[in-house]
């Protein structure tokens, strides 16, 4: 597990260092052609991204997931500060999640911090990958040993 994960009552925070300069990391969130190459879980075979990358703009990612079919991840950008921050809210069939991603310049590296608030009780990827619980178990033990992120 490369990321640092913190879990709170209603919030997930993931911190990860990438060996790439910040503009490049940001580009992989901003350009649909680049984003669709890494978006989706292991069972996702194809992703089609349509994005209006601006504050108030909408996006739709259509994912083809083996064993489950086609699913859409839709949302809207709430805040964009290039190349520092992207905030959006997304709908995965019912409940809304708020996601804020921040990018910190560390020279040849970039520290990326992602905060997700809200967890729709319908994680498609989790439902599909019923058999691969090993990574979840690892995370469970990690999560239980992490300090809780306190809410203001």
């Amino acid at each position, binding site marked *: 597990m490369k990321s640092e994960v913190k879990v709170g009552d209603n919030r*997930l925070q*993931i911190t990860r260092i990438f*060996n*790439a300069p910040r503009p*490049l990391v940001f580009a992989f969130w901003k350009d649909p052609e680049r984003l669709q190459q*890494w978006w989706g879980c292991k069972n996702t075979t194809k992703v089609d991204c349509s994005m209006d990358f601006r504050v108030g703009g909408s996006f739709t990612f259509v994912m083809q997931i083996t064993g489950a079919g086609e699913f859409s991840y839709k949302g809207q950008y709430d805040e964009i500060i290039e190349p520092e921050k992207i905030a959006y809210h997304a709908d995965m069939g019912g409940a809304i999640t708020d996601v804020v991603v921040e990018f910190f310049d560390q020279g040849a590296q970039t520290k990326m911090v992602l905060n*997700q608030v*809200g967890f729709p009780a319908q994680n498609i990827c989790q439902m599909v990958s019923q058999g691969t619980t090993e990574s979840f178990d690892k995370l469970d033990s990690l999560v239980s040993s992490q300090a809780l992120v306190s809410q203001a």
Partner: protein
Amino acid sequence: MLDKRKAVTAVFAALADPTRRRILERLAGHGERRVTELARPFRITLPAISRHLRVLEHARLIRRRRRGRTHFIRVNAVGMTSAQKWISHYAAFWESQFDELDNLLELAQQKKKPN
């Protein structure tokens, strides 16, 4: 599976409210507390606190013990554990995506290097 989803939804709905989160914080590490004692710092009415407690109880985040008219409240580990398990599934989801992003970033930079 459906029951599990309902249970998890109840937990997150319960946790979405800041007053309820603060109630849980006040209970953490304190064992049992009387409702009246629990309610003290909150500037809302006792019936309002009771409503919050019912939501938390329904989500299995707290347990209630009655002794005559006195109600004692404590954290229920069952609810919190299921919430954290679910959150960990999302952490795994992001992790696999970031692993892929990692690979792509490495590839992108290799292309830029002169031969």
